[in-house]
């Protein structure tokens, strides 16, 4: 059995105008010590999926259905209190906006030490030593001195490292990183990804990396899940998905990564906008934006394709693929 199994996860938010279908029947598995990238544009449901795994939707108005099984425990059946007890120790999360994610009035070292002390019941001195050790581990220079710094005194990259240190302080088995590199410049992005990779190797932590950047995913994770309109449209090993994308949406995302070697300043993009999540069409959500729907015809708008294994071992939700045709690259 996989370390993390997400089965048929659906998340709905009742709002004044109706119900937002944020996530619609997403399933995936993650093995221990492996990493999974969840890719999709804003509103595709990737962040909400991670919040559901963390159990952070339990106190909200969100309606979560399906199963999330971590290490044999069904988290969907857990109460908020039960979830609270395994947060940090079994699973932890790194958020994207590092300045907003740290408490502005507390010293960074103390914030890390607080989590450790609270979770282990150790002495203040032990917790402080642990926090300094963690700051050192994530590559903060002079951790002893920087312990007493406040978040605004750290650079963006250092803050993101500190947040990773805080998430890892109790040795969680699963780390969810929600766009951890979005607000950072490119060189720092690479450093943060390397740090996550190091953590995965050294501690055997399973990692879910949420991003809108396929480029980030391609060099870092083992498997990738592409989400569109709250559904998984393509799942597979990162090598296969990047080299032979099967879903027109994945292909479109890959094609829109600008080619730095080409002289022509010509950006490819996916036309149209994401669908209204208040009322999902009965057919394929991507059909209105798809270049290939003319090759398939009315079926794209009439029925929702299933997520089926394609000839390349990855799973794809597309009528085109299932009718034996391929996207051209």
């Amino acid at each position, binding site marked *: 059995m996989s370390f993390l199994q997400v089965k048929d996860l659906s998340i709905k938010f009742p709002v004044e105008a109706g119900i937002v279908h944020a996530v619609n029947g997403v399933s995936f598995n993650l093995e221990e010590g492996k990493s999974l990238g969840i890719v999709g544009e804003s509103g595709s449901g990737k962040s909400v999926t991670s919040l559901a795994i963390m159990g952070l939707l339990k106190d909200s108005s969100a309606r979560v259905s399906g199963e999330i099984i971590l290490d044999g425990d069904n988290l969907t059946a857990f109460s908020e209190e039960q979830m609270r007890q395994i*947060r940090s120790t079994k699973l*932890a999360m790194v*958020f994207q906006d590092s300045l907003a*994610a740290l*408490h502005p009035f507390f010293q960074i070292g103390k914030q890390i030490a607080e989590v450790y002390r*609270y*979770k282990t019941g150790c002495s203040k001195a032990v917790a402080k030593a642990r926090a300094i050790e963690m700051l050192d581990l994530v590559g903060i220079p002079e951790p002893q001195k920087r312990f007493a710094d406040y978040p*605004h005194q750290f650079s963006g990259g250092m803050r993101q490292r500190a947040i990773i240190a805080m998430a890892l302080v109790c040795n969680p088995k699963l780390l969810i990183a929600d766009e951890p590199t979005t607000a950072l410049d490119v060189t720092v992005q690479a450093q943060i990804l390397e740090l996550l990779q190091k953590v995965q190797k050294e501690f055997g932590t399973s990692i879910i990396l949420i991003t809108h950047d396929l480029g980030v995913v391609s060099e870092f994770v083992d498997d990738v899940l592409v989400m569109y309109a709250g559904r998984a449209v393509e799942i597979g090993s990162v090598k296969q998905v990047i080299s032979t994308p099967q879903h027109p949406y994945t292909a479109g995302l890959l094609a829109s990564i600008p080619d730095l070697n080409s002289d022509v300043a010509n950006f490819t993009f996916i036309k149209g906008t994401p669908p209204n999540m208040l009322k999902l069409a009965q057919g394929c959500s991507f059909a209105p934006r798809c270049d290939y729907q003319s090759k398939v015809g009315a079926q794209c708008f009439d029925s929702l394709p299933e997520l089926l294994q394609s000839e390349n071992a990855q799973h794809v939700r597309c009528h085109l693929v299932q009718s034996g045709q391929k996207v051209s690259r």
Partner: protein
Amino acid sequence: MMKYALRRLAAAAMLLIIVIFVTFGLFMAVPADPARLSCGKYCDEEMKARIRHAMEIDIPLTDQYYRFMKGLVVDRTYRANTDAEVKCEAPCLGYSFRTDESVTEIIKRSAPVTFSIALGASLIWLTGGVLIGMLSALRKGTWIDKIVQSFALFGASLQIYLVGWVLLLFLVIKWDILKMPTYTSPFENPIEWMKGLALPWLTLAFLSMASYARLTRAGMIETLSEDYIRTARSNGLSKKRIQFKHTLRAAITPIITIFGLDLGGLLGGAVITESTFGLRGIGSTALESVRELDLPLIIGTVIFSAFFIIMANLIVDLLYAVLDPKVRIAS
């Protein structure tokens, strides 16, 4: 930090000097002739001149200002109505020819009343307001929250002279629960001090508590939706810890600031409360001095109030640097 504090202190001192100057100038611009006012019914020019001389208002304005400022640091003497020499010890805020007393003496006598009212009431409204506001924020949308919100609206729209008299009528006169407001020195008899001031405290606290509850509620609700609270939750900290440590710490900062300013303003005289309950504090003294055109006393009380408001601003600024690490570093 030290440099910042000194700079702020210097600015506060400058401001106080300017306030004194303006107050002094206004005093002189008033059309009423102080000599005529304190001269009585049968008054001739000669008598008025003598009084003017005694009041030291027959010399140029700049000299008067100089003497006044000097009096703040060194003792000065006045010739009182009786022509006897009266010594006014520094800080001398002038001499009231109406009551035949130095202004400093009058203020010294009434300040403890005002301080007692302000300290007791502010303590009640701060703790009460913050607690009620927190409760309301954490139970947002429930009947508790709704009651608190209507109470806040109710409290914010009422006035001391109404609430004070209603409470006086019921709590004191009809039900005999509280004592008629009086002032006893807390150093003589602390129990009597509390008993005597209970009603003014409750009245004043009730009204301010409403707005503090509202402020706390808004601050808590805003903070609860911050990313760092979500981080604390995702780190598996307990609800209590998140609410009382992480949320309150951020939400309380602006409230402390407002509290400092409110308290500063109140220490300079709780005019309405004091006059509603007939307590002789700075506020009712100031009111009386205006009614009787006792100009030296008006100047004295205005300067006294200004001093506390300026001090409160200074302390709040310095406190903010302590409370908010961002301000601390920048300064």
